[in-house]
């Protein structure tokens, strides 16, 4: 009996008229928790009832406290017939269960009905008295904190990062139960909402238990998803990173630590050339390892599903660590050993974090991903359904007793995929995967499971408790190069898992780096970056024949590799077109529909100072004899070159350059050094193989041999840059902008297009999809034009295919304004500085003068001989891509390697840049001004509603988060049978999304918060039937409720308690506690 839940119903307002005769309502409230229900008195004839009820007390297990939501139903009393429901409020009381979070939930909640939407508001107060019971066999995990934020929350310190936690729960979907045929849509929707609420509660509790087992106290980067598998059930699954967090006690103590990035970055010192690091060097390349497995759900044998699984586990591991020991010297070996032992205890060394404490991330290998196509199977179990429908419907059933295979099946599927990911990471010489995420796409009975992450080498310091000796730790820190260390390859260059072109790091010149780097994480705050970043998207559609079951799954499996390949090529092309060399926050989504597959990859392109300058794009025609054709080609080539030049200007990519004559000298030096190392470690010297000093840059070649290829080139050029004053990225922080002002606008935009079904070709489809995304972006820029200069951050696109000819794209992002003047200043000083820096670097370290060469892009034709030498199979590589559909995928792995070879590029000139996009100029006035504006608003809001900010980012510009109040995880269903009357599909969905925002804000306000950070709309499933005038939509959102204080306020009232300062919540003066 460890908890007492107390609820008081205070009042209602703006209730709908339920009695047409009197134009009034006789409302009362039912309060239900678990099996217990209380009722208030009926408040007669009022649309603004004042119940002012007694405290309703529920005495419950903490297990129930975690699983169950508090359910409040507002009804209209009717003497003669059944009482009519006005609507419901579900309150997740989880935030009241941890000590540091909210202590009371009190405020106005929108009363929600799945058919009518929001119908008035109700004022409720909820409290929990928890009794400690320490010596019981625990089933509950009260006290474990959950965060959606994928970094260490701002007012905490990570003591230990334990690692991956996952869990999934399966149940039958109420929508597909037999009883659904006889009950009302409202009852069915409510059953679904309640079930999902229960399931997420249970899931969270189970994950909490795992965390306690690991001796952690929190889950960071918690991501919970639903798979609506239709008739085969409902899966709720979650992943996260278990941590032990320490609250930074006094506000003063965390002042520097929990800054918004603008300040954080400021504090990071300019990158001084680090000491030579002794451990083995190695570049990393954006390798994507892919696996495609297809197995009908009934076969439980773990198939060795991919053709390149043999990269995995044993051989490479042995080699990886072996070579490390050989080259890296004892120090590196020790590091590796320790990390390995720390990580090997874990089944999956995965981390859902995308940003890390300084020093955590040592090296990044590249993106690893795995996909698998599965068949969902219907389960026939009438007995089970009967029970669900009747007595125990409020409580989750233990699925295992009915169908023992089911959760195991799902678990096995995911375990298989995770194993793949793990082996891919090993192949990259990495022992861990960061920025890890999982997703599914379901169409009818086919399901694609995907997982991706970034292979990385981590610092063991955070992974274990006190096992690392102090001296090692210190040395490590000293030796880690700042700003470029993570770019250095983690794998052994002699046994590279894939062919890649390596150069010495342009920043420290000590280690090897790859030519291009793809990752799923955020840009590390200390990374040295040139210019600004930008959003890069690859979009792709592939038609597929309609098929049933296994044939369908096979068809999809066959298509996947080619989609991945093309998406990758597009990304690479666009990255080069932007003149950049690294992608962060890469997210590739493959969506399956009845008759097509869609691929959408989003990432933020960046120019990393440590990586070589990307080469240009070279166009080659197949029929060189034709004059006009030739002309056309050269015209295209010119256009491409112009675009690259324009982009470089636009994104301010102007790394200091070193002319060709100079390169001769710097390279031999480090090489000698590395040779020295090698000879020490008795390694065979094959360094020469990597011919770094050749002066030619191999451009990226696009062969135009048919119209398809032509289309590809055209589509490359159709991407319009955002209008001036706008920037966009899908990461947390926009590289190159750091003077954010406090105005933010989070938004969701949804578009659905109907394809004309006639003669759909891949090309037409691609164009439609491309236009859809581009137009959507254009609309966003137009709508937000009043915020210029501003940046769209965390732009998150989701594609779904609700029907045959429909494509739905959902975008959630936040627009943040920044100070243009300051930005300009910064750039100027910054460029000056960098130039200065570059020259001093050169003078001091390289002992030769700096020369700037202005012509950056002399297009050199790709030497054919070189091509031969490098990739003998490249000839087959390109056609393979274009004959995509006809190729058997089993041979894909081979081709894969060939295209990677193909897309390699080589720098013509060795450029050296150590520009950091940090600002040291502090300008307080605009921020203060912004705050003033903001603060002046609430006073007149005396009677109005307090402002609650929402953002997908983990921070609020110009403000400090002082308290995390708990996780917000809400699931809503809305249905209508009067679609036309509600303004059609757009009117319906517009109203629904606005309502969802309102309900999130109300819950946050009731917890005492004034913002939601790391907000994400995980699902937005929209179905319509215009003929029947019906539509239904499901939305799932989550985020962290927080209290923030404006930085300017903090300065003013720094002596006062900061929390006393932030009370923008006027949740009703009449509330009594």
């Amino acid at each position, binding site marked *: 009996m460890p908890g007492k839940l107390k609820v008081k119903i205070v009042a209602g307002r703006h209730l709908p008229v339920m009695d047409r005769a009197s134009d009034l309502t006789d409302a009362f409230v039912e309060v239900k928790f678990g099996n217990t229900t209380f009722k208030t008195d009926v408040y007669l004839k009022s649309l603004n009832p004042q119940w002012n009820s007694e405290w309703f007390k529920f005495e419950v297990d903490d297990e129930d406290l975690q699983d169950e939501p508090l359910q409040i139903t507002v009804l209209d009393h009717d003497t003669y017939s059944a009482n009519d429901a006005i609507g419901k409020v579900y309150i997740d009381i989880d935030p009241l269960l941890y000590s540091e979070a909210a202590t009371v939930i009190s405020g106005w909640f929108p009363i929600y009905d799945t058919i009518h939407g929001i119908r008035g508001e109700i004022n409720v107060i909820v409290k929990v008295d928890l009794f400690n019971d320490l010596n019981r066999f625990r089933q509950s995990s009260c006290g474990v904190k959950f965060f959606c934020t994928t970094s260490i929350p701002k007012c905490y310190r990570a003591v230990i990062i334990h690692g991956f936690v996952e869990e999934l729960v399966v149940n039958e979907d109420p929508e597909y139960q037999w009883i659904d045929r006889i009950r009302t849509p409202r009852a069915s929707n409510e059953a679904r909402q309640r079930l999902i609420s229960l399931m997420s509660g249970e899931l969270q509790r189970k994950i909490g238990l795992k965390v306690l087992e690991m001796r952690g106290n929190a889950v960071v980067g918690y991501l919970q998803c639903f798979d609506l598998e239709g008739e085969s059930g409902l899966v709720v699954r979650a992943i996260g990173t278990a941590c032990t967090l320490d609250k930074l006690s006094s506000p003063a103590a965390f002042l520097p630590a929990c800054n918004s990035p603008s300040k954080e970055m400021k504090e990071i010192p300019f990158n001084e050339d680090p000491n030579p690091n002794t451990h083995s060097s190695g570049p990393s390349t954006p390798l994507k390892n892919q696996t495609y497995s297809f197995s009908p759900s009934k076969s439980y044998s773990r198939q060795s599903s991919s053709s390149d699984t043999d990269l995995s586990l044993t051989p490479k591991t042995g080699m990886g660590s072996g070579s490390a020991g050989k080259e890296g010297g004892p120090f590196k070996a020790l590091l590796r050993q320790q990390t390995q032992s720390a990580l090997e205890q874990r089944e999956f060394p995965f981390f859902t974090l995308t940003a890390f404490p300084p020093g955590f991330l040592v090296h990044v290998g590249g993106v690893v991903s795995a996909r698998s196509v599965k068949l969902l199977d219907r389960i026939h179990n009438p007995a089970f359904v009967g029970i669900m429908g009747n007595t125990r419907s409020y409580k989750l059933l233990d699925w295992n007793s009915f169908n023992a295979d089911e959760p195991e099946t799902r678990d096995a599927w995911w375990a298989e995929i995770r194993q793949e990911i793990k082996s891919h990471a090993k192949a990259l010489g990495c022992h861990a995967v960061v920025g890890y995420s999982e997703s599914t796409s379901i169409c009818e009975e086919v399901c694609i499971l995907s997982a991706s992450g970034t292979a990385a080498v981590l610092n063991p310091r955070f992974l274990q408790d006190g096992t690392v000796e102090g001296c090692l730790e210190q040395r490590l820190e000293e030796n880690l190069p700042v700003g470029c260390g993570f770019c250095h390859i983690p794998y052994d260059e002699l046994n590279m898992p894939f062919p890649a072109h390596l150069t010495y790091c342009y920043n420290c010149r000590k280690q090897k780096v790859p030519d291009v780097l793809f990752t799923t994480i955020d840009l590390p705050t200390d990374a040295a970056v040139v210019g600004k970043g930008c959003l890069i998207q690859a979009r792709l559609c592939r038609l597929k024949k309609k098929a049933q079951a296994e044939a369908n799954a096979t068809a999809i499996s066959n298509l996947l590799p080619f989609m991945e390949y093309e998406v990758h090529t597009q990304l690479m092309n666009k990255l080069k077109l932007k003149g950049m060399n690294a992608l962060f926050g890469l997210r590739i989504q493959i969506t399956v529909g009845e008759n097509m597959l869609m691929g959408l990859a989003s990432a933020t392109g960046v120019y990393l100072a440590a990586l070589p300058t990307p080469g240009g794009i070279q166009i080659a025609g197949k029929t060189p004899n034709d004059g006009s054709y030739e002309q056309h080609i050269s015209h295209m080539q010119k256009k491409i070159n112009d675009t690259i030049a324009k982009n470089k200007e636009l994104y301010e990519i102007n790394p200091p350059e070193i002319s060709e004559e100079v390169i001769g000298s710097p390279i031999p030096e480090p090489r000698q050094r590395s040779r020295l190392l090698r000879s020490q470690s008795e390694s065979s010297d094959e360094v020469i193989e990597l011919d770094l000093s050749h002066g030619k840059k191999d451009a990226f070649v696009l062969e135009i041999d048919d119209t398809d290829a032509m289309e590809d080139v055209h589509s490359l050029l159709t991407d319009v840059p955002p209008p001036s004053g706008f920037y966009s990225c899908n990461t947390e922080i926009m590289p190159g902008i750091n003077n954010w002002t406090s105005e933010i606008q989070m*938004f969701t935009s949804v578009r659905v297009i109907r394809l004309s079904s006639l003669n759909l070709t891949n090309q037409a489809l691609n164009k439609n999809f491309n236009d859809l995304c581009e137009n959507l972006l254009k*609309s966003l820029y137009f709508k937000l034009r009043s915020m210029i200069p501003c940046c769209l951050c965390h732009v998150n696109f989701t594609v779904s295919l609700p029907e045959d000819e429909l494509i739905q794209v959902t975008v959630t992002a936040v627009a943040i304004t920044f100070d243009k003047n300051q930005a300009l200043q910064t750039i100027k000083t910054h460029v000056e500085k960098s130039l200065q820096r570059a020259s001093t670097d050169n003078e001091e370290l390289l002992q030769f003068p700096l020369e700037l060469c202005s012509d950056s892009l002399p297009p050199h034709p790709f030497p054919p001989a070189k091509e031969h030498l490098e990739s003998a199979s490249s000839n087959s590589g390109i056609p393979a891509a274009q004959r995509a559909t006809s190729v058997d995928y089993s041979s894909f792995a081979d081709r894969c390697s060939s295209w990677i070879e193909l897309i390699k590029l080589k720098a013509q000139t060795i450029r050296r840049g150590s520009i950091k996009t940090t600002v040291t100029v502090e300008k307080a006035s605009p921020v203060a001004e912004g705050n003033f504006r903001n603060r002046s608003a609430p006073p007149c809001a005396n009677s109005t509603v307090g402002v609650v900010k929402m953002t997908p980012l983990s921070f609020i510009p110009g403000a400090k988060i002082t308290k995390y109040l708990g996780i917000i995880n809400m699931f809503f269903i809305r249905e209508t049978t009067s679609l036309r009357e509600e303004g059609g599909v757009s009117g319906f969905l517009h109203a629904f*999304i606005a309502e969802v925002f309102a309900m999130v804000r109300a819950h946050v306000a009731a917890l005492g918060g004034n913002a939601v950070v790391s907000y994400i709309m995980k699902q937005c499933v929209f179905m319509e039937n215009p003929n029947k005038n019906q539509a239904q939509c499901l939305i799932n959102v989550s985020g962290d409720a927080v209290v923030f204080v404006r930085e300017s306020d903090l300065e003013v009232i720094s002596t006062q308690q900061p929390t006393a300062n932030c009370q923008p919540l006027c949740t009703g003066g009449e509330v009594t506690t």
Partner: protein
Amino acid sequence: MTNELDIFVGNTTLIDEDVYRLWLDGYSVSDAVARRVRSGILEQTGATAAVLQSDTMDHYRTFHMLERLLHAPPKLLHQLIFQIPPSRQALLIERYYAFDEAFVREVLGKKLSKGTKKDLDDISTKTGITLKSCRRQFDNFKRVFKVVEEMRGSLVDNIQQHFLLSDRLSRDYAAIVFFANNRFETGKKKLQYLSFGDFAFCAELMIQNWTLGAVGEAPTNPDSQVDDMDVDLDKEFLQDLKELKVLVADKDLLDLHKSLVCTALRGKLSVFSEMEANFKNLSRGLVNVAAKLIHNKDVRDLFVDLIEKFVEPCRSDHWPLNDVRLFLNQYSASVHSLDGFRHQTLWDRYMGTLRGCLLRLYHD
């Protein structure tokens, strides 16, 4: 490829003032898009017509959803669905309740009933204001009227409190409600030269002096609810006005009044002889208007009568405004020197307001 669905929802609701104006003016989405294109916004922003169409649709949808709340502005402040900064809320309300001069002149003093609503088609054609906008304005009048009609206390305050309008707009609405309640005729041809402002000015004077609420500090019957109102004229006062008839009925009194005025104004008026010749007519006109006000029909015709009996005769003799002022001042003041006249307070309550009104109404 067609957009089946296209929405944008911000955590803070985006309000585009220009689009709001177009919506209020009753333009359809396509008309609004056309107007926006003509405004040159495409050139300024580099957007396409499709973008503009989508943007306009979005805003129209938002306004449509907000309209329900704008019908009861305090709801807009308390609702949770749209997060709108207070300054924007005020703008939304103020603009929604703003009206067109041309429209208000058409319906001022008319009964705000279904019948009048049917005439909105004609008003729309006549004024060039879209029917949609006419409906909104008419419904606003009616809504405000319904809410404050039966309310006690200051009319302006009530309107301000229940509709959160600015002081200026609240006063205008008070005039509209007052006119609608008393059904003053404003549509006659000879009244056409008068602006809404002229009527609103008169309405304010009448509310201040001629209604029950005007008695203010010393209400005759403190317990009565109905009486403490700004919308109805003080019946007792109107009844009493009959007593003023003696000023023209009693020949001696009339002569004395005339001689007092003429003595005082001799040499001061450019139209002295005309005034002298017309004095009895004018005085009779003004006093008879007062005496008849007990009948509803004559209350309605108040402005017609004032124009016919006073404004027009003076205008035909080309009285300058200043002479009218001097005359009216003297005309009102001289009554105090009439020994046989006992209704000095009544006279002041009547004439004080009337003088203000007449001066405002006296223009071309």
